[in-house]
C-alpha cells in the first residue's frame, strides 16, 4: 500500500501495481462498502474511548470537574489497590505459566503418536465459556474433600504420607475414670502393675472409627506390667451395654496413643492394638495415664482453595487450564516451522535433548513465545468472568481485579467517574501493543 511494490505474486505483470482498484471504482462506491463498518466502529469503539476519557475527569454524578481525583482513587482506594495488586499477579503469572506449559506440551507431544489427541484434550477448554469454566472450577475447588476433587486428591496424598488415627469428638461418658486435660484426657487415679485399666470414651462417629478397629477385649492382668483397654463404650442401636467394660459389639480404639505421666513427665507410652488393648512397662507404675490431645484432632480437611489467601492462585489455575492449549497450539505451529536439519545437526554434534531444547529450540521459537505471552497478557488484563464466577462472595474482595472493580464501580456502586478512569487506565496499558501492531503492519506493507 505505502509503496506500489507491496504484496502480489512476483513475476506476474499484475504484481507491479497491486491492490489498485481493479478498474477505477468510484469513490461513492468505496464509501458505501466502508460505511457500515466505519459507522459501527465509530459509534461503538471510538466514541466510547473519547467519552471515557472525558468522563474520567468528572465526579460521580457527572456534574463537576474532578481533575485527576478519579485516577488518584485507583492508587489510594483500598479496594482498587487490591484489584491492581491482583492484576499485577495475574499479568506476571498467568501468561508465563500458560506459555511455559504450552511450550512443554508442544515439544513433548511432537514425537508421540497420540500427540494430536492430547492436543485436542488440552485445547478443548478454549471452546467453552468462562462462565462454564467457572462453574466447573467451583465444583473442583469445593472445600469439602468429599465433594471437591482438588481437595479429595490433596487429602488423599496428605493422608498417605501423614497417616494418623484420629478420634475427633471423643469424650468421656458417664462415670468415666477419665477427665479432660489440655485437649486430651487423664485418668483420675494412678495405675499399678498387675492390674488392668479401662479407658472408655464415647462420641466418635461410626464412619470415623479406624477401618481396622476390632471388637474391644478386656485386658488380662500381667504381673510386672500395666495392661488395659481403650475402646468406644457405646454401640449404635444397642446403647452402652455394660458401662465401663468392653462388650463384643463395641470397637477398640485402634492406634490410640497412651502416655503414662508421673510428676508431669511422660515415663512410658504405647499405642492401642486393633482390639483396644495396650501394655505399659513397669516404669509406669504409679503414674497416671493420659490420652494426649493429638488423638483427638479433627481429620485433615484439605486446603481452603477459595479462601482469602489462595483464591487468586486458584483462579489463575483455572485460567491456565483454559489457555495453556492456546499457547500450545501456536507454539506447535511455530515448532513445525523449525528446520529439522538444525536439530539433527545439534544432536549429531552430541548435544543432549535438554541442550537441543535450551540452545536451539527455544531461541528459534522466541518470536512465537513473545507473541503468545503478549497476547495472553492483554487477555489477562481484562479477566473478569472467571473471578466473578469462581470467587465466592466472602472472598471476592480478596480476588478482585480491575475489570471486576470497573464493573462494580460503574454498575452497582454508582461511580462512573472512577470506573471510566479504570477503563482509561486499562486502555493505556494496551497502547504499547496497539503501537506494536500498527508498526508491524506498516513494516509488512513496505516489504
Amino acid at each position, binding site marked *: *500500500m505505502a509503496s506500489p511494490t507491496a504484496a502480489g505474486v512476483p513475476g*506476474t505483470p*499484475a504484481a507491479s501495481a*497491486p*491492490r489498485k*482498484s*481493479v*478498474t477505477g471504482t468510484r*469513490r461513492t462506491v*468505496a464509501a458505501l*462498502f*466502508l460505511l*457500515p*463498518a*466505519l459507522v459501527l*466502529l465509530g459509534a*461503538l*469503539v*471510538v466514541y*466510547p474511548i473519547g*467519552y*471515557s476519557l472525558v*468522563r474520567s475527569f468528572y465526579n460521580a454524578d457527572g456534574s463537576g470537574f474532578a481533575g485527576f481525583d478519579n485516577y488518584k482513587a485507583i492508587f489510594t482506594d483500598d479496594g482498587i489497590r487490591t484489584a491492581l495488586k491482583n492484576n499485577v499477579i495475574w499479568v506476571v503469572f498467568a501468561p508465563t505459566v500458560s506459555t511455559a506449559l504450552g511450550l512443554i*506440551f508442544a515439544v513433548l507431544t511432537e514425537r*508421540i503418536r497420540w500427540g494430536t489427541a*492430547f492436543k485436542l484434550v*488440552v485445547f*478443548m477448554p*478454549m*471452546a467453552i*465459556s468462562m*462462565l*462454564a469454566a467457572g*462453574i*466447573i472450577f*467451583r*465444583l*473442583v475447588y469445593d472445600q469439602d474433600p468429599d*465433594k471437591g476433587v482438588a481437595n479429595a486428591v490433596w487429602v488423599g496424598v496428605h493422608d498417605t504420607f501423614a497417616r494418623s488415627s484420629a478420634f475427633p469428638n471423643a469424650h468421656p461418658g458417664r462415670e468415666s475414670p477419665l477427665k479432660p486435660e489440655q485437649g486430651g484426657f487423664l485418668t483420675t487415679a494412678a495405675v499399678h502393675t498387675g492390674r488392668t485399666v479401662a479407658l472408655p470414651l464415647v462420641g466418635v462417629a461410626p464412619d470415623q472409627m479406624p477401618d481396622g478397629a476390632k471388637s474391644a477385649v478386656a485386658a488380662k492382668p500381667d504381673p510386672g506390667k500395666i495392661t488395659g483397654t481403650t475402646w468406644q463404650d457405646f454401640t449404635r442401636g444397642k446403647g452402652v451395654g455394660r458401662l465401663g467394660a468392653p462388650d463384643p459389639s463395641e470397637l477398640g480404639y485402634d492406634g490410640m496413643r497412651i502416655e503414662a505421666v508421673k510428676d508431669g513427665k511422660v515415663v512410658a507410652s504405647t499405642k492401642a492394638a486393633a482390639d483396644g488393648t495396650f501394655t505399659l512397662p513397669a516404669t509406669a507404675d504409679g503414674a497416671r495415664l493420659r490420652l494426649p490431645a493429638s488423638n483427638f484432632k479433627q481429620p485433615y480437611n484439605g486446603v481452603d482453595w477459595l479462601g482469602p489467601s489462595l483464591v487468586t492462585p486458584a483462579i489463575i489455575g483455572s485460567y491456565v487450564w483454559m489457555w495453556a492449549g492456546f499457547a500450545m*497450539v*501456536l507454539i506447535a505451529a511455530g515448532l513445525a516451522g523449525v528446520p529439522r536439519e538444525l536439530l539433527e545437526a545439534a544432536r549429531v554434534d552430541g548435544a543432549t535433548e535438554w541442550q537441543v531444547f535450551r540452545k536451539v529450540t527455544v531461541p528459534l521459537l522466541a518470536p512465537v513465545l513473545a507473541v503468545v505471552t*503478549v*497476547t495472553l497478557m492483554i487477555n489477562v488484563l481484562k479477566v*473478569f*468472568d472467571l473471578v*466473578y464466577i469462581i470467587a*465466592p462472595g466472602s472472598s471476592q474482595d480478596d480476588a478482585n481485579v480491575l*475489570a471486576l472493580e470497573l*464493573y462494580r464501580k*460503574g*454498575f452497582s456502586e454508582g461511580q*462512573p467517574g472512577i470506573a471510566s478512569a479504570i*477503563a482509561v487506565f*486499562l*486502555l493505556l496499558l*494496551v497502547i504499547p501493543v496497539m503501537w*506494536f*501492531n*500498527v508498526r508491524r*503492519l506498516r513494516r509488512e506493507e513496505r516489504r
Partner: protein
Amino acid sequence: MSWLLEKVNGGLVRVFLIVVALFWLVPTIGLLASSLRSPEDMSANGWWHVFSKPSQLTFDSYRKLLENGDITHSLWNTVLITVPATILVVVIGALAGYAFAWMEFPGRDWWFLIVVSLLVVPVQVALIPIAELFGKVGLFGTILGVILFHVGFGLPFAVFLLRNFFAEIPRELLEAARLDGAGELRLFTRVVMPLGGPAIASLGIFQFLWVWNDMLVALVFTKSGTQPITVALQTQVRQFGNNVDVLAPGAFISMVIPLAVFFAFQRQFVTGVMAGAVK
C-alpha cells in the same frame, strides 16, 4: 545403555502426558457427572461415586432444567444474539475488507491503520458510554443492542483478517470478472466472497464462539427477558451449593453447541485463533 535410557525417558514422557491429560479432562468429567446425579446424591458425596454406583445416573436435572421456562428462554436468546451478530460481522467486515484490499480512495492506508489499532481496545472501555448511549436511543436491555455491541467489537478483527485474505486473491481473477461486465457488487458476491471461504469460515467460527460464550457484555446490556444463558446461569451462581442441579446441567447445555462447533471445525478454529493472536 543410551538406548535403555531413551526407552525410560520415552516412558516417563508418556506417563507425564497421560497425567496432564487427566488434569485437563477430570474437571469437565466432574461437571458432566455432577449434572447426571440427583441433588440429594450431590449433597451427600463427590461426583466420582457415580462410577462405583452407576445406578445414581439420572437425567432428572436435565428434565427439570428444560421444563424451566427461564432457562430455555435464555438459551433461545443466546441463539437470537449469536447468529445475527456472527452474520453481521462477516458481511460488514467483508464489505470493508474488500474495499480496503481492492478499492482506491483517499486516506485508505490511514483508515486501515486506525482499524488495526482498534484490535486491542478492551471492551471494558465501552461499557459505561454505550450503556448511556443505548439508554438514550432505547436500545438498552434489547437483544439488538447486544448484537450491535458484539458487531462493533468484532469488526476490527474481521476487517483485518478479511482484508489480508482478500488482498491475496489473484488480480487476474478480478479483472477477468470485471471484463465480463460484473459490477462492484457482483464482483464482491460472486468472486470475492466465494474465494474468501476459508477466511470467512475461520472468522465466523471465531466470532460465533466469542459471542455465544460472552457473559460480560450481556450482563451489562440485557435485562431479565433478554438475557442469554450465560447471564441466566450467572444469577444462579450467587447461591452456589444449593443449586448444583441447575448449574451443572445448565453449564453443560451451554457448552454443547460450542463444543460441537469446535470439534466439527477444529482446523478453521485454529486458523482463526492464530490470526487472532495479539487481538
